[in-house]
């Protein structure tokens, strides 16, 4: 009856789902079934709950009400609903960035002594970008820099400093459209304001405000998060790691970190090597401490330390169902509320750490940057203590894991391509110009039980690299492809087209580059700006033969990322189900057609990975033609 292969292409996932079925444990897949049918009004975006005259619904068949009580039509309602999601997504990323900047501020005042300035070059470069005199002491620079970074959130006028990283032409487009973000918090608030009852009724204008808000995330909050994390936690370097549920160890105390903000999990990594704790683990009968990650916290500690990844978004429940997890420590975002009940079916201790994200009745150990290491140690101690409670008969870890190489950043890519002493993007640009590489693709985003888990990510990426498209990945998408063995250099030989293969072999990189967590999508933006700076591929981000895709998206954050990519001139495809805008033909056409003329990028909705690849390749070829590039070398 249950077709596990339809639920996921990942064997480890299938095995744990079988165990769950046997033990009558419900997962997201089961809950999705219980939710059927999902409300058509919601899916089409024509349900408005903005004010108390509603909820109102527009009859999509044109017979009943075509406007809400206030008079808002389908265009306004769908645009407002979408705008709110953009604002929420931007808030999540940007608030993450704020916390990281705040940690830098504490560090500069000597309060966050467990952290340090670990990437001094990046630190100084960033300070220079903010016009700070770098001849001062490190502490003084950090003080001034963190102040300026935090000011980006509260700024009322002018523009975000990072906008200057974009090519001149792109900046002009933003200025012309009046979508240059002024202050991170301001853009979120202003967007939310426009969506309340009786403010903005022009769907095009609502989307414009949405684009500006999304830019304040991509070129603001997310970029701050990435850059400051690199400074205080260290910039990633290519690193080998392992992925999938098989990284959980039978005889060890398994601590799983899950969520998005790496500030605390970084300390957990440090503490997991503490000889005192190791001794404690041994005395509890375990062979050692085993740390693994889920979602973007996993990506962060993978990128910087090669900590194994237990799985992506849809595997968070499965990790607990293996019965081998002593502690699942969570911070913020993408943490399923279902974890609480699930953990109570096992010995697993769920620990919340962030004051913004709590569960009723769940152990809460609040993280404070001032006492970071101490908190991390306490969490691990709880894990060790809990090891004795593990029911060995219920432990069933699927023996599947895969190697991967992660840790690519815009700086590292420079060095790999050009060498340490003449770091440059020239070889990359040259490869695209000569046609050895067809172009670039960013494949990012979540999982969604509405479609076969990991299938869209991996099928799409395989098809892209087969056609000589170098794929840049972040988030759960990167984890999906890593599990299928696409993130090892050897994958080039098996899956990549001849041109991409030549490049991968020459510089020793996988055909799919793991750039980190979802906030690290900002790395893609800066890398693209460097490509334009290097020359030969046009004057604007929209000129680059590149495309983006979130094949299995579910989060509001994905919508915001999509919007800042489109606002940066990128053609972006969304899989799973489309944005809830189909109830308005006007808005849907605006997003999928008209926007290209306006910002250079546009959306596309598609529910077939091979078709997605076809569309992305067609777009890349269109851009190659516009640049008058030579035909692709091997096609």
């Amino acid at each position: 009856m249950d077709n596990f292969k339809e639920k996921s292409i990942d064997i480890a996932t299938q095995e744990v789902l079988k165990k769950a079925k046997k033990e009558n444990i419900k997962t997201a897949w089961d809950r999705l079934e219980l939710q059927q049918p999902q409300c058509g009004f919601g899916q089409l975006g024509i349900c408005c709950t903005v004010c108390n005259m509603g909820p109102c619904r527009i009859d999509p068949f044109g017979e009943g009400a075509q406007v809400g009580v206030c008079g808002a039509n389908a265009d306004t309602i769908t645009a407002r609903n979408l705008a709110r999601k953009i604002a929420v997504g931007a808030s999540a990323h940007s608030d993450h960035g704020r916390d990281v900047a705040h940690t830098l501020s504490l560090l500069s005042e000597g309060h966050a002594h467990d952290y340090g300035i670990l990437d001094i070059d990046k630190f100084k470069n960033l300070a220079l970008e903010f016009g700070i005199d770098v001849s001062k002491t490190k502490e003084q620079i950090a003080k001034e820099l963190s102040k300026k970074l935090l000011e980006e959130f509260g700024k009322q006028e002018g523009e975000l400093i990072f906008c200057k990283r974009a090519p001149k032409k792109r900046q002009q487009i933003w200025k012309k459209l009046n979508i240059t973000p002024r202050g991170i918090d301001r853009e979120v608030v202003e967007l939310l304001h426009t969506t309340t009852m009786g403010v903005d009724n022009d769907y095009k204008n609502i989307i414009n405000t949405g684009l500006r808000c999304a830019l304040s995330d991509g070129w603001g909050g997310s970029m701050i998060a990435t850059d400051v994390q690199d400074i205080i936690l260290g910039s990633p370097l290519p690193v080998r790691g392992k992925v999938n549920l098989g990284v959980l160890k039978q005889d060890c105390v398994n601590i799983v970190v899950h969520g998005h903000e790496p500030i605390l999990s970084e300390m957990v990594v440090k503490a997991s090597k503490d000889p005192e704790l190791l001794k404690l683990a041994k005395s509890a009968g375990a062979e050692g401490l085993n740390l693994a990650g889920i979602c973007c916290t996993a990506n962060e500690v993978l990128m910087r330390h090669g900590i194994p990844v237990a799985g992506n978004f849809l595997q968070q429940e499965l990790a607990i169902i293996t019965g081998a997890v002593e502690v699942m420590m969570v911070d913020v975002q993408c943490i399923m509320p279902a974890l609480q009940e699930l953990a109570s079916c096992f010995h697993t201790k769920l620990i919340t750490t962030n004051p913004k994200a709590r569960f009723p009745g769940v152990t809460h150990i609040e993280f404070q940057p001032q006492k970071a290491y101490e908190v991390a140690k306490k969490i691990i101690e709880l894990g060790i203590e809990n090891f004795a409670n593990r029911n060995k008969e219920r432990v069933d870890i699927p023996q599947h894991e895969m190697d991967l190489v992660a840790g690519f950043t815009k700086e590292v890519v420079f060095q790999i391509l050009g060498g340490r002493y003449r770091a440059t993007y020239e070889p990359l640009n040259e490869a695209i110009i000569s046609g050895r590489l067809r172009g670039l693709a960013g494949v990012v985003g979540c999982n969604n039980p509405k479609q076969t888990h990991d299938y869209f990510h991996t099928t799409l990426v395989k098809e892209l690299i087969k056609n000589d498209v170098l794929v840049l990945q972040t988030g759960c998408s990167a984890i999906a492809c890593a599990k299928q063995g696409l993130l090892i250099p050897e994958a080039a030989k098996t899956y990549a087209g001849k041109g991409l293969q030549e490049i991968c072999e020459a510089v020793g990189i996988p055909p799919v580059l793991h750039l980190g967590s979802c906030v690290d999508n900002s790395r893609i933006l800066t890398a693209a700006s460097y490509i334009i700076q290097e020359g030969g591929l046009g004057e604007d981000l929209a000129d680059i033969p590149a495309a983006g895709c979130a094949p299995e998206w579910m989060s509001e954050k994905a919508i915001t990322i999509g919007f800042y990519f489109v606002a940066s001139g990128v053609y972006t495809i969304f899989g799973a189900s489309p944005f809830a805008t189909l109830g308005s033909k006007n808005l849907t056409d605006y997003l999928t057609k008209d926007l290209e003329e306006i910002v250079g990028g546009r959306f596309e909705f598609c529910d077939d990975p091979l078709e997605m690849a076809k569309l992305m390749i067609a777009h890349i070829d269109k851009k190659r033609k516009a640049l008058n590039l030579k035909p692709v070398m091997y096609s």
Partner: protein
Amino acid sequence: MKQLYYEVKKCLGCKSCEIACAIAHSVSGDLFKVLKEEVLSLPRKKVLHLKDKNYPVSCRHCKAPICVDACMAAALIFDKEKGMVLHDQTRCVGCWMCVMVCPYSAIRPNIKTKIPVRCDKCKDKDEPSCVKACPTGAVIWQEEILIDTKK
């Protein structure tokens, strides 16, 4: 003979049954495509609201159907075996007499195609689409029973 029944108390008026009905009678059978179809599929079922209750209404396939009597083109017949009022589209002249005489307002005119639409119990499917679509189980598909209305 299976019939559609409704537990009115359970109906929250989300109109999911309407959408499912329109989709079931569309060409594509897909929510996201249905709105782009040339001839818009219409729901055969409507959720009507009266006082504080919602009433999903569709053709009851009456045993003494006055719509059949009213049809001047003999496009409507009552099939005793199937227990259903059947509609022959090729004979229908679009006079809307059936629409007018139906005591339940369960026959609806599709003005564009000039053909009335009514519940056909999703005859090609195991059960009508509205049954599955109802998130609260207010739509019930079961063998005909005698209900004591005096209670």
